[in-house]
């Protein structure tokens, strides 16, 4: 089981957390709203979960749920005034929100630990191992080292969360609500004329995106056991955006693919990881020129589905 090393599993875990972040920007974008506040919402989830478990000994799942919900509520509060804005103005306002939030995290030292952040957050894998060990379980019985077991547990939980998230929003996109989202994105006033309450669905999508970002943040806190304001900077917001721009934002698999590819690629290209942001920039420009809809679009998926069925496209 040499291949099952904690490093590989950690990269895989980041892929999964980033995939959830990718879905979070997709959901908001699916109503035509570009939010760059997802790093900020992520920090709400992460800090809520971290503080609840370190200072109040709240069980991890409860903390994660609370962090996600609080981020979702923040999404409603930001989403309602943000309705007045669209396009690049909305992007700037939400980016501003994220930066203000980060300034609060840095300066509210008594609560957040300031720029140092919060350490010693219970790590999901370790907690499970401790719980199982108390009941006489030993990872060696499965032929695993303790740290292999810990990473594997984290990976499994994240995989479960990611699969649940993707299938939730995949199903939603095919439902009445999903059709309303798409209609709003394609033509807001025609959607209103077709009887769709625009305000309701835009705020709903915005807060769903915020909730998912918070969820990813809470999972992140309990995977790495350390969070600081540096994890939720402007760079993170842009990184999430790039998942959607690179992968494609018209289908949920677009940003998921973008997240996976852009998380694994820098690891595979360790030698040039210092130039990651330069590469991001070049990639963005190249995508704008050659494939503005992103790598994955509904037409591509249709072609895949047809060739899978064995009929020519």
């Amino acid at each position, binding site marked *: 089981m040499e291949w099952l090393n904690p490093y590989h599993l950690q990269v895989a875990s980041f892929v999964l957390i980033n995939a959830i972040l990718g879905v979070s920007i997709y959901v908001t974008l699916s109503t035509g709203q570009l939010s760059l506040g997802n790093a900020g919402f992520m920090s709400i989830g992460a800090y809520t979960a971290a503080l609840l478990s370190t200072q109040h000994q709240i069980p991890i799942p409860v903390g994660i749920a609370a962090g996600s919900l609080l981020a979702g509520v923040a999404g409603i509060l930001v989403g309602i005034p943000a309705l007045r804005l669209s396009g690049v103005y909305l992007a700037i306002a939400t980016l501003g929100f994220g930066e203000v939030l980060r300034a609060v995290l840095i300066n509210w030292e008594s609560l957040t630990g300031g720029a140092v952040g919060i350490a010693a957050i219970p790590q999901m894998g370790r907690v499970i191992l401790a719980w199982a060990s108390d009941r006489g379980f030993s990872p060696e019985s499965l032929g695993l080292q303790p740290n292999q077991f810990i990473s594997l547990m984290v990976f499994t939980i994240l995989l479960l969360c990611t699969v649940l998230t993707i299938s*939730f929003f995949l*199903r*939603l996109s*095919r*439902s*009445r*609500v*999903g*059709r*309303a989202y*798409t*209609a709003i994105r*394609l*033509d807001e*006033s*025609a*959607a*209103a*004329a*077709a*009887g*769709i*309450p*625009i*305000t309701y669905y835009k705020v*709903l999508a915005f807060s769903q995106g915020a909730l998912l970002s918070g969820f990813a943040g809470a999972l992140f806190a309990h995977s790495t056991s350390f969070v600081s304001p540096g994890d939720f900077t402007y760079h993170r917001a842009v990184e999430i955006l790039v998942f959607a721009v690179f992968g494609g934002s*018209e289908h949920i698999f677009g940003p998921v693919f973008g997240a996976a590819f852009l998380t694994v690629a820098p690891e595979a290209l360790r030698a040039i990881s210092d130039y990651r942001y330069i590469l991001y920039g070049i990639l963005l420009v190249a995508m704008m020129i050659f494939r503005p809809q992103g790598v994955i679009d*509904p037409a591509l998926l249709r072609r895949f589905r047809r060739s899978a069925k064995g009929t020519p496209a």
Partner: protein
Amino acid sequence: MSALLSLRDIGKSFGGLAALSGISFDVQQGEIVGVIGPNGAGKTTLFNVITSVFPPTAGEVILDGERISGLPPHKITKRGITRTFQNIRLFSTMTVEENVMVGRHCRTGAGVWQGVLHTGKERREERGIRAKTRELLDLVGLSGTDVEMAAGSLPYGHQRRLEIARALAAEPRLLLLDEPVAGMNNAETQDVFELIKKVQSLGVTILLIEHDMSLVMKACDRLVVFNFGRKIAEGTPAEVQDNPQVIEAYLGTEERDADA
């Protein structure tokens, strides 16, 4: 008998420019009423006021005895007024079927959880939506097309029909058609005429903006004529046709001096 739609002294100004002023007329249940007038007379503005794209600056819109001006657009749709657009506004990358399904939105109710969990109620509702969609596509003469096709890749005439199907999906009492035969040839215009009559026979009242006079004269029970944001005439097609003010609006005044 009270009218289905009643416009009372509607005015709409953009900045200092009065696009509509003092517009009052009634539309009775079951009628087809044509709104005609030269370009820029305010016809589409009137549709936008009725459907609350923007509120009127003066006056009120009454539907079936209740004031509806000031309601948000989706509530107007729910109350039973739907429309088509002068420049077709379909959801072009959605499929033909989905476009009509979107139109069912305000007559259905499945929310996020029902949609995700596929509850029995949601599945029944979706089946109902699809059945109604097929029925409407059939009604507008699109039953032969591939419903999985993107709406934007339909031929022009079919796009107009699809837009009518989407508008009918909300089960309107009053349907507003904004130049439904613009850019169509005679045969296509005849088809749309028959479609409009068919829709009327289903009990839907129709307010029709159209420049094609042969269609307007044939299809409409009554006409309202606009010029420069004002109503200049109202009556049956025959009455309106002979109205000197209408002739003047369309053809201009005779230059009497030239003969003298």
